[in-house]
């Protein structure tokens, strides 16, 4: 029955293992005890028997029977066997009727003897030895084994009896531990099953004072928190992309439909197609920007980094944007106050600076001025692009670098510009930050950041 249930199976396995361990341990204990006890007992007896042999051998032969009888009379527990036989094996004196069939010489043996003084018993088991006396007679000396054996049997039986509750206990504890372990594993299994099914909200229970498993659960929960965030992020991006593409696609479709219906001559068709192409180009621009963002976030491009002269790059950026700024009534001021060479990708850095300048021209008030500055101090190199506008509101600072975020009613652009700038900055180990006061965005490259090359 329990085979079907993995929880019960785990319990039985644990219980069985514990019980087997206990039984094994008990058996080993008993065996060792048995071995020691037996051995000690035998050696004590043998010592006594050897003493008897020596004593009687030294006793003059005419006094031996008397001495023997004297000894037996002192043995009130009737444990001792003593008998003297003549060379032909006939009993001279003692409490054993005849010599046992097998008699080891010099060593003690366990054998049956025929007692003469124990009423109602014709045979008894004794450890005995037979030794030859100087006058040719033989002395049998031995100890009744009944009592000693009884004691050992008692020990054996009590050990076995003690094994029963031990076994039950082991089985019980094993089952309990096993079930507990199985339940914990089962909880994770159920959780992962739900995660596989797509539900990331479930968490494992963690007690107030967690044990090591509890700590592991907490770790798993933390991992799930992070995973949930990432998945939400990915889903959010997916939603964003879908939303971003849907609007221009709808516009594109409507334009084409209207063109098909209303355009009458090739010129009108050409105009429709041109508008559609522009629309498609902007869509492709969004897709390309997204791909570039993903690629930048991979941080794999550092291998292609080379030395970039930031001063020249800033000059080039100003040169590139100055006519555009002037057309909008904005003076573009370039203030390169230091020389700086960094490790990086010139085109990417140019793109970042161009995006910042572009934003400043777009959002700064006109007429006015936009300042691009390159400074260097102990902390590092800073590229600052500032305009005379209100800047990015403090509440918006964290948001503007997210994909598709558009601040202050900005309508142009993909909403990916600052996300790209941040990705480029991250790739280079630079920081993108916004000035606390006024309106300025800064790319900061600290000396600590690896990309900086010492000036020569």
């Amino acid at each position, binding site marked *: 029955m329990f085979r079907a249930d993995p929880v019960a199976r785990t319990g039985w396995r644990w219980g069985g293992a514990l019980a087997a361990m206990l039984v094994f341990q008990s058996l080993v204990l008993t065996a060792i005890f048995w071995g020691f006890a037996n051995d000690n007992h035998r050696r004590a007896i043998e010592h006594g028997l050897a003493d008897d042999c020596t004593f009687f051998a030294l006793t003059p032969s005419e006094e031996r029977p008397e001495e023997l009888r004297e000894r037996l009379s002192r043995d009130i527990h009737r444990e001792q066997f003593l008998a003297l036989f003549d060379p032909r094996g006939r009993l001279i004196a003692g409490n054993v009727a005849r010599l046992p069939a097998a008699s080891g010489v010099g060593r003690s043996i366990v054998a049956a003897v025929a007692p003469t003084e124990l009423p109602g018993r014709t045979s008894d088991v004794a450890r005995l030895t037979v030794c030859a006396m100087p006058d040719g007679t033989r002395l049998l000396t031995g100890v009744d084994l009944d009592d000693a054996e009884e004691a050992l049997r008692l020990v054996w039986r009590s050990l076995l009896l003690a094994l029963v509750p031990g076994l039950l206990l082991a089985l019980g504890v094993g089952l309990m531990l096993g079930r507990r372990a199985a339940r914990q594993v089962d909880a994770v299994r159920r959780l992962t099953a739900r995660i596989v099914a797509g539900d990331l909200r479930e968490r494992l229970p963690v007690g107030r004072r967690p044990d090591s498993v509890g700590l592991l659960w907490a770790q798993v929960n933390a991992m799930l928190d992070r995973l949930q965030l990432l998945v939400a992020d990915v889903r959010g991006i997916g939603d964003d992309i879908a939303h971003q593409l849907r609007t221009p696609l709808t516009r594109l479709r409507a334009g084409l439909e209207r063109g098909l219906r209303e355009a009458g001559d090739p010129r009108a068709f050409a105009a429709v197609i041109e508008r559609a192409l522009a629309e498609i180009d902007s869509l492709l621009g969004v897709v390309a920007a997204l791909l570039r963002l993903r690629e930048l976030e991979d941080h794999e491009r550092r291998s292609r980094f080379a030395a970039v002269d930031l001063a020249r790059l800033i000059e080039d950026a100003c040169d*590139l944007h100055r*006519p555009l700024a002037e057309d909008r009534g904005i003076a573009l001021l370039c203030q390169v106050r230091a020389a700086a060479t960094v490790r990086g990708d010139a*085109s990417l850095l*140019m*793109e970042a600076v*161009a995006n910042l300048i572009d934003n400043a021209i777009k959002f700064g008030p006109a007429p006015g001025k936009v300042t691009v500055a390159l400074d260097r101090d102990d902390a590092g190199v800073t590229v600052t692009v500032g305009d005379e506008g209100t800047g990015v509101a403090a509440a918006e600072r964290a948001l503007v670098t997210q994909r598709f975020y558009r601040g202050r009613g900005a309508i142009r652009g993909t909403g990916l510009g600052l996300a790209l700038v941040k990705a480029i900055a991250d790739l280079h180990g630079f920081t993108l930050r916004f000035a606390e006061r006024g309106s300025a965005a800064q790319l900061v490259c600290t000396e600590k950041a690896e990309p900086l090359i010492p000036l020569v």
Partner: protein
Amino acid sequence: MTRILLLEDDAGTATEILLELAAAGHEALHRSTLAGAGEAMRESAIDAMIVDRQLPDGDGLDLIAALRAEGRRTPALVLSALGSLDDRVRGLRAGGDDYLPKPFALVELVARLEALLRRPEEGRATRLIVGPLDLDLLGGTATRAGRSLGLLPRELKLLDYLARRPGRIVTRSMLLQDVWGYTFEPNSNVVDVHMGRLRRKVDGDGEPALIRNVRGQGYVFDVPG
């Protein structure tokens, strides 16, 4: 007529490119595998090739690398859906002469191909006289029919680049890449603003326009007469 080898495994893309090449007056051979392209290169006289990266039997860069190893300098334009700068660097290192990430405008493709076919010898001449234009690159001055144009250094470079490619479309990204030296797609129309200023300086009132804006495509320098 020039003969172009197109190595592209996507049938739809290939058809569009072939039509565009034909419209631009080029004869084109289309192959969709590395093996086929290698054979075509050995058997026919090819003036330039357009090579896709991901092909059923390998990377188009391998073909270019193999040709370069044989000492053949046939100009190659590399196309790739792997639109990263890394790939661009790799493509150029493998011997490609220019690199165009997908998706691209067909105009851009043809413009860049033609730029490869007729690579002007740049940097040598310090004085360029085209029609009424007289560019003195060393002195940094330019005149049109004796009238000083008062060009800024960057404008002079732009005009020089255009004047060396008469009659051919020059795209914005080509200008950004070759005149400024940066490869990126600007969000704004920065290049157009520069070109607008240059055109106003070069083409005075009543004079025939030397620089023509091809809408949505780029600019063409027209040699007068």
